């Protein structure tokens, strides 16, 4: 009996309701996915245009550009991380 009780108490303590978490995650995800269907390549387009603007002033290595996304319930963030080679700013300064 004690074994059984031990077992059920262990179960109870680990049983926090996870379904509400699943529900919220799905709501956020599906809201984004449904909105995406019309314009699937928005991120790609944003990245290309941002890179085009930056490369007008600096020579950059496309491999050193990292785009990160975090989709939230109310706002999402787009993080563009561009690695600039040292000296690039000086080399291009006179042209500007």
């Amino acid at each position, binding site marked *: 009996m004690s074994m059984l009780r031990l077992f059920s108490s262990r179960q109870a303590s*680990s049983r926090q309701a*996870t379904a509400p978490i*699943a529900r919220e995650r799905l709501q956020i*995800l599906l809201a984004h996915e449904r909105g995406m269907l019309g314009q699937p390549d928005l991120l*790609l387009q944003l990245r290309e245009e941002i890179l085009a603007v930056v490369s007008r002033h600096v020579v950059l290595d496309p*491999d050193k550009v990292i785009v*990160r996304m975090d989709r939230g319930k109310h706002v999402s963030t787009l993080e563009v991380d561009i690695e600039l080679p040292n000296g690039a700013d000086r080399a291009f300064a006179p042209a500007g």
Partner: protein
Amino acid sequence: MAKVLVVTSGKGGVGKTTTTAAVGAALAQAGQKVVVVDFDVGLRNLDLVLGAERRVVFDLINVVQGVAKLPQALIRDKRLENLWLLPASQTKDKDALTEEGVGRVIAELRKMFDYVLCDSPAGIERGAMLAMRFADEAIIVTNPEVSSVRDSDRIIGMLDSKTVRAENGERVEKHILITRYDPARAARGEMLSIDDVLEILATPLLGIVPESQDVLRASNVGCPVTLNNPASTPARAYSDAMRRLLGEQLEMLVPAEPKGLIRLLLGRRAA
């Protein structure tokens, strides 16, 4: 030397994605550098099971088509620094995957990681073929149930004939992983026994994962079960399976009680 492992089954809903996430996380915890690759184009879910769904920017098809570089598409797990995800595309057509392109991506991943785990889509179409095409080893996820065993047999036939290794006269090392095993039903004789499954498929056993609420809870919160509740019976079964993949000889534990708490030792050797 990097290993490419395909997690496959033929049948849907048997636990391929759960297994990919759980074994991938367990390997990463054991110090291996791991990437899990979702091949289910149009119906990706590995990102969701890993809790990375909000962070997907680029995907496998973007990389195959050369639109994005591989490092830009890889998503690092927030809990395990050794674990990375290459997501599938949700919007593109699966025909966008080419054998040449997938081969190039896998070759590049081999240079960067110790383990490349390919999560196959269900079925035997293009996506499933490409997921297994470059594999060195295969985990065939099987439920102890007639249709699943039949589909596993079909997949084993494909692994022995349609992979690059098979075409070069080499073997793809195959492992059966039994999932959703229900000890109570097995005890009542309502479910195919493990011996039945292994005898029919004639392939070594990697592990037995019991049907468990812990698996559902883990996917609800977006965390591999091996991380979310390491003490749970499915997590321990996955963890043992991972250690067997790394070459350890462990006794095979068969979940015995309805709750899966008490497990009996069975004298069967692992692969």
